[in-house]
């Protein structure tokens, strides 16, 4: 493997690992906060118990999220010193502000976890709100750096020198708002579906204990409702993201859709694999005109194809598949919530059939997969650039060699931690089964 690819693989693996915990670290605090608020409103102690148990799980997840985030942050400088040199000069603000968000999250999480029994209910909600805000703000700010990589503004490179630096203009780069919103909404969606998955699984496994069923039913409904709302919002926002690509990174949109020729009334191709030789998408389903409409809200919108760009600027063509997988999962989850809503509200059925419950069990893992596909699409689709049209990934990479060994080391640590997290979570919740804490009356 060549040097740049090894470096990308190492960093990509770090991010793929970190994003699981980072996403849950944004999504779960939001669910805990909702459970705490529901408890204060309904005085139903089941919700307090949910908040309590989810917090335990969150503390374990953050035990991995925080160090893996530290790795990601430091590895940026170690593997991409050229990139970080530009970031330091132009786009340092989001990193710096993220530190404050990180502080807020760490301080109040420790307070909520270790001092919960000494502080007032109001302070608990306040602490939790700060944890949720801190987590979301961290995600927003780090995503901002990613947004900047796609739509860099606030500086120029003249004869290799960085000039005309306007750090706030770089901060509010054109894709910041839409991209950051996408990340936060999809994290809330993922957190909610993860809760729904676990609850559905527990309900399937405890068919004969009505009390446990009832507890998990409440969690399931909360998860499905929040998941449904946020999958809808994510979809709407995803549409804006695609229009943003159309405007600012047309070759990325072209690669995502497998479009080679510039045209109006461009078709949307769903599924299939992009073939470089024949310049077509094989085995895809073609819907006429739709891509033009999605890109610009009009059927005669001209969508730029890959052939308008030199081939060395093309992103890898497999991003079409990643893009489809991400959108597909999002649509599927949205559909799932709608079916659940109809079943529960319109058909007034309070017991879901088994096939539905098992489908819900897959929702959490699927949502996480969607996040992974989305990130790989977003970063691979920007190649060969690390900063769009300003700096290539190859220019940014470290001059140190021997990355292969490091890759093996880090990957084994991630695998090990993944296994350890699962074991620890299982061990904890086995020793603290829900029966111990549930009040017997209903």
């Amino acid at each position, binding site marked *: 493997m060549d040097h740049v690819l090894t470096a990308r693989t190492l960093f990509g693996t770090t991010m793929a690992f970190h994003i699981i915990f980072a996403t849950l670290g944004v999504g779960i605090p939001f669910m805990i906060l909702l459970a705490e608020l529901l408890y204060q409103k309904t005085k139903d102690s089941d919700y307090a118990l949910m908040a309590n148990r989810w917090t335990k799980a969150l503390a374990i997840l953050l035990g991995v999220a925080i160090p893996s985030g530290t790795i990601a942050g430091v590895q940026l400088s170690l593997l991409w010193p050229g990139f970080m040199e530009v970031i330091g000069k132009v786009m*340092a603000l989001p990193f710096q502000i993220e530190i404050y968000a990180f502080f807020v999250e760490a301080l109040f999480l420790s307070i909520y976890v270790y001092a919960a029994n000494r502080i007032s209910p109001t302070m608990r909600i306040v602490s939790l709100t*700060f944890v949720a805000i801190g987590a979301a703000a961290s995600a927003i700010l780090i995503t901002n750096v990613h947004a900047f990589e796609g739509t860099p503004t606030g500086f120029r490179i003249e004869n290799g020198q960085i000039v005309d630096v306007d*750090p706030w203009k770089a901060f509010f780069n054109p894709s910041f708002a839409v991209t950051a919103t996408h990340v936060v909404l999809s994290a809330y969606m993922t957190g909610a579906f993860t809760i729904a998955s676990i609850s559905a699984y527990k309900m399937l496994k405890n068919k004969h204990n009505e009390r446990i069923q009832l507890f998990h039913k409440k969690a399931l409904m909360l998860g499905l409702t929040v998941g449904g709302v946020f999958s809808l919002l994510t979809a709407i926002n995803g549409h804006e993201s695609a229009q943003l690509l159309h405007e600012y990174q047309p070759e990325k949109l072209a690669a995502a859709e497998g479009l080679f020729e510039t045209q109006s009334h461009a078709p949307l191709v769903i599924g299939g694999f992009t073939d470089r030789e024949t310049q077509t998408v094989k085995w895809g389903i073609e819907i006429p005109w739709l891509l033009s409409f999605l890109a610009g809200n009009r059927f005669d919108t001209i969508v730029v194809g890959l052939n308008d760009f030199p081939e060395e600027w093309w992103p890898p063509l497999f991003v079409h598949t990643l893009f489809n997988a991400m959108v597909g999962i999002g649509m599927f989850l949205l559909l799932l919530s709608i079916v659940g809503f109809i079943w529960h509200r319109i058909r007034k059925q309070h017991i879901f059939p088994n096939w539905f419950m098992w489908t819900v069990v897959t929702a959490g893992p699927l949502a996480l997969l969607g996040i992974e596909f989305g990130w790989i699409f977003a970063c691979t689709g920007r190649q060969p650039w690390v900063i769009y049209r300003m700096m290539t990934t190859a220019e940014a990479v470290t001059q140190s060699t*021997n990355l292969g060994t490091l890759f093996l080391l880090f990957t084994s640590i991630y695998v090990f931690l993944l296994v350890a997290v699962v074991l620890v979570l299982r061990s904890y919740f086995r020793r603290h089964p829900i029966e111990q804490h549930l009040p017997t009356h209903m």
Partner: protein
Amino acid sequence: MTDELIAISILWGFIFIYAVMATMDFGAGFWSMVYMNRPQTKATKIANRYLSPTWEVTNVFIVAIVVAIVSFFPGATFMLGTILLIPGSIILLLLTIRSAFLVFSHVAPKYEKVLVYISGISGLLIPAFLISVLPITHGSFVETVNGVSRLRLDRLFTSPHEYAFIAFAITSTLFLSSLLLADYSNEANEIEAYTIYHRDALIIGPFALLSSILIMVTMRNEARWLYDGMMARWPWLVASVILFLLAGGALFLPSWKRKNGRGMPRLAVVAIVLQYFCASYAYGKAHLPYMIYPNMTIESGFTHPNTFRALFATYIVGFAILFPGFIYFWRLFMKDRRYVANDEK
């Protein structure tokens, strides 16, 4: 004060705070391993009670340091990133394992012993690697060929200077943490634990001082420019030694808390933190203007002035907002007797 000086001072401030907090954090992990099999003393419990809520906050500081370097001195980032790839990666791996296991050991008692060993041993290894960054910046281990800088690990690990720093890191970790835990157990009225940590501090203190002298001795040969610079600031070094003696004395004074008790640990902690402050100030001042000798100065690696101004503004706003949070945190975990003296719920 120039912009560069303000920036390097903020960076140095972060490093100093992290150094103090991290030595306590790492040391506490080590002590909790050492005294694990003596449950009657509660020495382990004391260490854990301190450690649990603080490690996350401590960890934020290391990210804050990296961000401060990148954002204030992006020019230095390129070189530092290149030469620190290997040591930096080792530190990251150790930190990751340690933090994860610290959390795991609290929720899964089944694995507690293994976990405590891991956090204890890494508690000594991490400071040893972390401090290696300092001798690396002294320049003689960096080789630049055709514009590509490279760290000569072979030279680094055969240098007495490096080993003096490692000895200093380990003894300081143990010294500072045992002092702090002595103070913490004193606050909690855990006499037995206090006696143990008080004794440990007295034993290790002289070794910490000795290794710092060793650093100076080896520096004379390996980084003469820095040695001369530090010696020119001798009043700071003398002050540092005096503060060390003061702390030693404070450990022998009669306690104001208990009759027949010995030692004023709070005074000793303050004196020792001041001692490290003086010594690291002399070191840092002598190190200027070089970030990495002799290629990289704070001027040559400095960020764009516009970015600096924007960053500086966020520092003021950010810490003004955070400050009450820190105070609240401190009161909940360091001052609240209900927490400090509490025997598990």
